[in-house]
């Protein structure tokens, strides 16, 4: 090898290299030897000088050349170098124009070195400054150039003076999606993003105005798909170059870089936006306490805090009142020692609202951990303060409420193991010592009533296991031995993965309310018992009349079952037609209560007399209802009616007696008066006076009259006294036979007939003498007052009616006007006929007999037709 340089001189490698260096140092051609790995074997200063015109890289032996070392060279140089080394071509020649401040052209020859000996191969590069311009322009179908540009990742373009592309390398398809053929003929501005067009236009104008000058611009170009791609384009006006005569452009895809830059810018913008829009104000001071920067909030508040506008470069001490300076100096000293300091201050705003600010002074550290400034933040904490105060007040209130309500609260945090037990819990559970965890609390279990323990333990366990709510009551033996009743309500909190985080429970001593409830229940059960067992009926009904409930007494009284009666309405048992009921309902409506007597309808349709007390009431839910107490007064009514009858009878008897006494006194006085009158008329001076005879005669008559009257009265009194009248079974038929004997003559005188019928009843329990007297009186009256116009007929019949045996004496005699004489018919000494035989005693005596034996007497009569007397004998039990 190296025959080209030193023919026929055998050399070792080191000697060769030394010789090469020498040779190269004296040659007038810039030369560089490289091996197959692009490693510089030898290089002379002329080459270095040439290379450095384009690139600042170090060109020394042993350096391995990279593409980057040729970055400002035309791409063809490096590619040719590589092609030669790879053996695709044995030599290459190119001309390179240096477009710096001195325009020079260089001819470069690259020669492949054969490798026949020592396995050495590589290339020799020789550079010679050319005096004349390079030969033909690149655009003229230069295969080599095309090879060069089409293998690059960058896109090379040539545009004519009208900025229309005449050539685009193939790499364009990778970046913009268009083929190189599709690009030819397009205007350089055509695919530019509308926003960037103006800038690109200016850039192109600059390029045209500045021949040979490399101008770079980043802008967006439309991809074939329609989206825009960021590119960095280097343009150079080579229109003046006779070989090129084009504007040369070389662009690459900087989309990724742009996106990254954009993110950073966005982040910066966001930060700036954030800082300038936050309510928190920031000021950064340098080590000399001068303001470096501040945000908008700080600027806005500065008149507030400092009475001065903020300005970069101002010392913060200039903003503070003089009196405050020493204080602040010591504060900053602390900060520069690395302490973070907080301050609070109050300011009154224009609207006289008080604002509280919290200022934080933080040291700023550099990378060496030295403090280079202060970072001041100020926050309006007025609302926060208020909230905190409110929270504190509410917390106090909650505590007070718990205290007043005697509500205890327990919380057990299973994650942090924190345990909270409010003051009230100690009182409720009678804990004498402080408890700090769940285990300590479990000491209470010993005092829980055995019957409730299971419920408590199960309830708590279930809540913790299932995260469920719970509520139960349990009895606890208090320290003083009295049993308490405690209401426990609580829950457990679980996280997403079913772990129990917290267990919470409230405790309340409900002993008093429980006792009250128990008392109420007892009272209720007593009332229930009273309701169920009361002799009086109780009905609860709605205002519309629906019966809500009725006690057994009501059911008994009215003949219903409990089920039947609750399906009734008040109107089913009340007689709404009755004026008493209407009155009751209206009084009840007006006054809310009613007490009175009325009739209630029994299920069998009969009416039951009842004493009713109705009161309007309201139940626990404020619903109105009527409570009615009913007393069956059937017996009372019966007794009342008996008493009334008795009273009436007594009254009548009394009247009878009074009448009797009037009449008797009258009838006694009459004969006595006669006797007295006769005495006064008696001529004592002449006993033989004729008139005296008449007086004596009348005297006798009057005395007998008096005697008869006295006898009558005695008889009447005997009957009326009704003492020990013997009763016996007396036959009506036999009595009649007996009596008829005495009146046979009278009857025949009147030519009368008597017809009897005792077939229905013949025997009665009565006094024989009385019965005979009654028969005698009745028959003799009929004979006495018989009609002269017809033959006397008397009919005597007996029959039963209800509780009576009735004996009827009917005649066809004179009859009488009962309207006129009815009330006096049975009176003593009442006479209605001029008949001398009657004294007005018979009917009176008969009635006295009958009444004395518990009976009664009725009469029917019509003048001219006859009379019928009905004598009622009480049927004996």
């Amino acid at each position, binding site marked *: 090898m190296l025959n080209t340089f030193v023919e026929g001189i055998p050399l070792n490698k080191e000697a060769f290299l030394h010789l090469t260096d020498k040779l190269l140092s004296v040659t007038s051609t810039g030369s560089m030897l490289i091996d197959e790995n692009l490693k510089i074997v030898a290089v002379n200063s002329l080459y270095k000088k040439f290379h450095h015109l384009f690139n600042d890289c170090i060109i020394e032996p042993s350096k391995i050349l990279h593409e980057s070392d040729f970055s400002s060279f035309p791409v063809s140089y490096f590619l040719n170098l590589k092609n030669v080394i790879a053996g695709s071509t044995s030599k290459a020649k190119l001309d390179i124009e240096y477009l710096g401040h001195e325009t020079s052209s260089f001819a470069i020859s690259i020669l492949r070195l054969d490798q026949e000996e020592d396995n050495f191969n590589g290339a020799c590069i020789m550079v010679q400054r050319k005096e004349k311009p390079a030969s033909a322009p690149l655009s003229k179908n230069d295969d080599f150039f095309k090879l060069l540009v089409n293998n690059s990742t960058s896109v090379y373009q040539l545009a004519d003076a009208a900025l229309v592309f005449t050539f685009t390398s193939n790499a364009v398809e990778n970046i913009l999606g268009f083929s190189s053929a599709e690009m030819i003929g397009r205007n350089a501005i055509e695919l530019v993003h509308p926003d960037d067009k103006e800038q690109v236009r200016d850039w192109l104008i600059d390029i045209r105005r500045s021949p040979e000058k490399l101008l770079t611009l980043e802008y967006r170009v439309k991809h074939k798909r329609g989206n825009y791609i960021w590119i960095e384009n280097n343009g150079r006006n080579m229109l003046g170059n006779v070989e090129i005569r084009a504007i040369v452009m070389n662009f690459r895809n900087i989309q990724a870089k742009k996106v990254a830059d954009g993110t950073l810018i966005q982040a910066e913008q966001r930060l700036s936006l954030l800082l300038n829009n936050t309510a928190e104000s920031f000021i950064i001071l340098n080590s000399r306490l001068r303001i470096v920067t501040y945000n908008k909030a700080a600027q806005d508040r500065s008149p507030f805090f400092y009475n001065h506008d903020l300005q970069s470069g101002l010392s913060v001490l200039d903003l503070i009142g003089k009196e405050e300076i020493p204080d602040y100096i010591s504060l900053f000293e602390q900060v520069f020692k690395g302490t973070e300091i907080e301050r609070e201050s109050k300011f009154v705003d224009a609207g006289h609202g008080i604002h509280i600010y919290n200022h934080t002074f933080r040291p700023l550290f550099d990378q060496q951990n030295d403090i280079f400034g202060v970072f001041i933040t100020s926050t309006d904490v007025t609302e926060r303060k208020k909230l905190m105060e409110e929270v504190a007040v509410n917390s106090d209130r909650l505590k007070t409420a718990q205290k007043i309500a005697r509500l205890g609260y327990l919380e057990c945090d299973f994650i942090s193991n924190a345990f909270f037990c409010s003051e009230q819990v100690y009182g409720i559970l009678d804990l004498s010592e402080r408890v700090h965890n769940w285990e300590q609390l479990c000491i209470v279990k010993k005092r829980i009533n055995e019957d409730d323990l299971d419920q408590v333990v199960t309830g708590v366990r279930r809540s913790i296991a299932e995260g469920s709510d719970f509520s139960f009551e349990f009895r606890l033996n208090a320290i003083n031995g009295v049993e308490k009743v405690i209401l426990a309500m609580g829950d457990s909190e679980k996280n997403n993965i079913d772990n129990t985080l917290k267990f919470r429970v409230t405790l309340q001593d409900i002993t008093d309310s429980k006792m009250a409830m128990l008392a109420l229940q007892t009272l209720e059960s007593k009332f229930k018992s009273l309701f169920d067992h009361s002799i009086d009926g109780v009905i609860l009904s709605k205002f519309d009349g629906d019966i809500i409930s009725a006690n057994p007494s009501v059911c008994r009284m009215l003949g219903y079952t409990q089920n039947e009666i609750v399906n009734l309405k008040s109107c089913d048992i009340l007689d709404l037609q009755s004026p008493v009921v209407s009155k009751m309902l209206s009084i009840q409506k007006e006054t809310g209560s009613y007490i009175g007597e009325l009739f209630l309808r029994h299920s069998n349709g009969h009416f039951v007399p009842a004493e009713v007390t109705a009161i309007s009431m309201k139940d626990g839910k404020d619903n109105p209802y009527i409570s009615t107490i009913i007393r069956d007064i059937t017996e009372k009514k019966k007794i009342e009616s008996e008493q009334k009858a008795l009273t009436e009878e007594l009254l009548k008897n009394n009247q009878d007696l009074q009448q009797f006494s*009037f009449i008797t006194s009258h009838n006694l006085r*009459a004969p006595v008066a006669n006797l007295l*009158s006769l005495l006064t008329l008696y001529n004592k001076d002449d006993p033989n006076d004729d008139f005296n005879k008449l007086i004596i005669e009348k005297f006798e008559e009057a005395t007998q009259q008096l005697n008869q009257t006295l006898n009558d009265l005695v008889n009447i009194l005997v009957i009326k006294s009704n003492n020990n009248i013997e009763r016996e079974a007396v036959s009506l038929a036999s009595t009649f036979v007996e009596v008829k004997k005495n009146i046979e003559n009278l009857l025949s005188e009147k030519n009368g007939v008597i017809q009897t019928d005792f077939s229905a009843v013949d025997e009665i329990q009565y006094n024989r003498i009385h019965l005979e007297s009654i028969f005698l009186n009745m028959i003799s009256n009929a004979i006495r007052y018989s009609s002269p116009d017809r033959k006397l007929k008397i009919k005597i019949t007996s029959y039963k009616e209800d509780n009576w045996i009735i004996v009827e004496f009917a005649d066809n005699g004179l009859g009488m006007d009962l309207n006129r004489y009815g009330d006096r018919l049975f009176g003593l000494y009442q*006479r209605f006929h001029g008949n001398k035989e009657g004294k007005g005693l018979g009917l009176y005596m008969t009635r006295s007999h009958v009444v004395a034996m518990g009976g009664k007497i009725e009469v029917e009569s019509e003048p001219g037709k006859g009379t019928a007397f009905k004598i009622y004998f009480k049927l004996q039990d």
Partner: protein
Amino acid sequence: MTKFTEVLLVEDDPITIMVCDRIIKMLSFAEKVTSCENGKIAIDFLNALEEKEKMPPIIFLDINMPVMNGWDFLEEFEKVRSNFENLPKIYLLSSTVDPEDYKKAKKFSLVQDFISKPLSKEALEKIT
């Protein structure tokens, strides 16, 4: 000189009739005593008077009589009194002690007074 021309005595008891008649005449109380034994007869008598002006100025009336008693007579007389120019003074002559009788008597304007049997000199002297 007698006090009154005539006395009508409505009375069923013959002894009382006799005694009254005797006393009236003894004391010259009336020229004439007419007696009727019950109210019915008395009414018939009065209605039968030919000259209405001959109505007896005094009537002594018993209460308790058969057929028509004193009260019924008074009621009947009330019905016919308008037929008479001169109305009599009626005195109830009775042994009654019943207060009802005294009350009842007040209903009849012609009844002047009660005279308790026996008819006495004093009672007659009061009547003018």
